[in-house]
């Protein structure tokens, strides 16, 4: 079971690199969907290793798989098609440079987990902390450097996934109501962000958040 866990975490790490170098918007959304699915499998694997089977956990796991893997990507694709945005993203930082930066961030994450042995011991596998930290930093990096509103939503989703990797990896269980609440919030957030992007496109005729700076002081 342990090797399946580390396989999944390894896949997640590779996914971060792909996300950094993805130049097509549609491609980015697919990667986020894959990340959602991997996250669902990860929670299943952690439950196996800690033996915490109960129906509540399974319900949460299936729901998160469905929402993060299926519903949200579909929503993003639908928004993209409706506002017929141009395919490629104009990043503030070049693709190769962002790849190097993500690599550096992941290296930093590994280095951080190496100097805090106590934490790693408690997690399901030694890879959990670095995977969580690198995904979080990738999400934030995407939000800072990508111009388009939709990519910022994607960045935010990656950021949330990173946090839930840490949550599931370290086997912190908050009870059914809270887990459902988390999922509902994330879904509602992305839904409203989609609506906002739709409105921005209608009144600004573009969704480049970099030029949304009228309200400066």
């Amino acid at each position, binding site marked *: 079971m342990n090797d399946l866990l580390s396989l999944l975490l390894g896949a997640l790490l590779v996914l971060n690199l792909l996300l950094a170098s993805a130049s097509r918007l549609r491609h980015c959304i697919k990667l986020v969907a894959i990340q959602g699915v991997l996250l669902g499998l990860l929670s299943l694997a952690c439950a196996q290793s800690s033996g915490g089977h109960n129906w509540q956990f399974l319900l949460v796991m299936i729901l998160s798989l469905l929402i993060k893997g299926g519903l949200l990507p579909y929503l993003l694709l639908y928004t993209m098609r409706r506002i017929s945005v141009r395919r490629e993203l104009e990043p503030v930082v070049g693709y190769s440079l962002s790849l190097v930066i993500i690599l550096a961030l992941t290296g930093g994450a590994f280095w951080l987990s190496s100097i805090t042995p106590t934490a790693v011991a408690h997690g399901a596998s030694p890879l959990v902390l670095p995977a969580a930290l690198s995904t979080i930093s990738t999400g934030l990096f995407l939000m800072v450097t990508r111009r388009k509103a939709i990519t910022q939503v994607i960045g935010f989703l990656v950021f949330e996934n990173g946090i839930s990797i840490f*949550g599931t990896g370290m086997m912190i269980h908050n009870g059914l109501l809270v887990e459902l609440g988390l999922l509902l919030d994330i879904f509602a957030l992305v839904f409203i962000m989609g609506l906002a992007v739709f409105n921005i496109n209608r009144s600004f005729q573009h969704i480049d958040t970099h030029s949304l700076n009228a309200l400066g002081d």
Partner: protein
Amino acid sequence: MLALLMVLLPLLFAAAAPILRKRPLALYSLLPVAGLSLCLVLAADLFCPERDLFSLYLGGTPILAADAISRFFLQLTAGLFLAVSVHAFFWLPATREHSSHRVPGTRTMHRYLFVLFLLAFVSMMNLSILSAHFGLLWVAVEATTLASAPLILYHCSEGSLEAMWKYLLLCSIGIGLALFGILLLAFAGKISSCPPASLGFADLSAPGVSFHPVWFKIGFVFCLAGFGTKMGLVPFHSWLPDAHSEAPAPVSALLSGALLNCCLLAVMRTLRLAPAEVLPFCRTMLTILGLLSVLVAAFLIIRQKDFKRMLAYSSIEHLGLCALLLCYCQTALTTHVIAHSVSKMMLFLLAGNILLAYDTRSISKVTGMFSTLPRTACLWLIGLFAICGTPPSPLFVTEYLLVTSLPPLLAILLLVLLFIVFAGMATACLSMTMGTPAPGSHERQAAQAAAEQLTIVPGAAALGILILGYITTLWMKQLL
């Protein structure tokens, strides 16, 4: 049981909103009725304090509970919502009729959506105050962001869109960091000598529980960053001026008056969990952020061109003061919070009236309010003196207590900053109220007359502040 009622009642009224879509008067009356019902529920609690009506258990762990401090915040939020809803009842029709300033193309949000989201926003705030579990607290705070984001879009202009997008994104990042912080706190508990049972506040603050100090610090930093973003402490404040100035008057009143207090409550809860050896670190962080907020807000207020943004910066400054009060003088915190919320609500409602009458938010274009809007002008100046802490207002008492408990160097810096804030706001308010009205103002006669009728709630709030001021002065006499 009452707690569930407090959360579900507004949702119930919210559900009724789409049904009354066709009849605007009934739709608008939903708000004051909801406000009144919340106050009745709280009154019920006041009459029989001995039975704990609030706690709600789910699977052994209490989900909703109300201790002394959260009961105070509940009453404050309910009171504020009642006042704002009564004002909104009159303000909404007036705005629709007179707000010609919007570009003809842009539309305003549909009435029932506004009422729906407003009620949802209030219920989520009640939920965040009443929640007894850290995770539920996070869900509720995130839900308040979601409920209040569409409200900013009431007048769907370019500015409000941009403000809403920034509000959504920055608050979500902040709340995400808070979630990571909560997980880190749980993790710190898990790896410590005797881990807490669950993330409920009762278990976390149980006597035997201990936390791993280093991981607790890191967790606290993330929580502070997260809830600090929602609270508007400086490095994380960037969304606040845009959101509060673009939102319509009742919404910005609630945002400033009630929402910032819920996040303050969240920070108070995390601070209360801190083990002894971590407490000095947490207090230092809060002091640094508090002082930074007052500093930056002071220097930003001076050069302000827009009076709603000026009020937003004053909220940032006052929340910075609340952070300082949290570390140095807890007793004065509740007085400061209630005084700030009431006077800020009054000022934002008045700002809404001025916007309605003058159709502009720039300070230089609004002149001669004493001749065009006499009542609003008087209340505007009373608000200025109340919010800047001149003696008759309770804020003077709390600022005096804070300054006595601060180390002298910080006290001098704080007083200088408070003076700069007073100078900045006085310049703006005086130039608005005095002077001869601009030549073009006579054709907006109807709008000005409508704005003059809307001064009932702010007037009541002003009276409340003065009475509160007198009571707190007497309280201060026994204290010192």
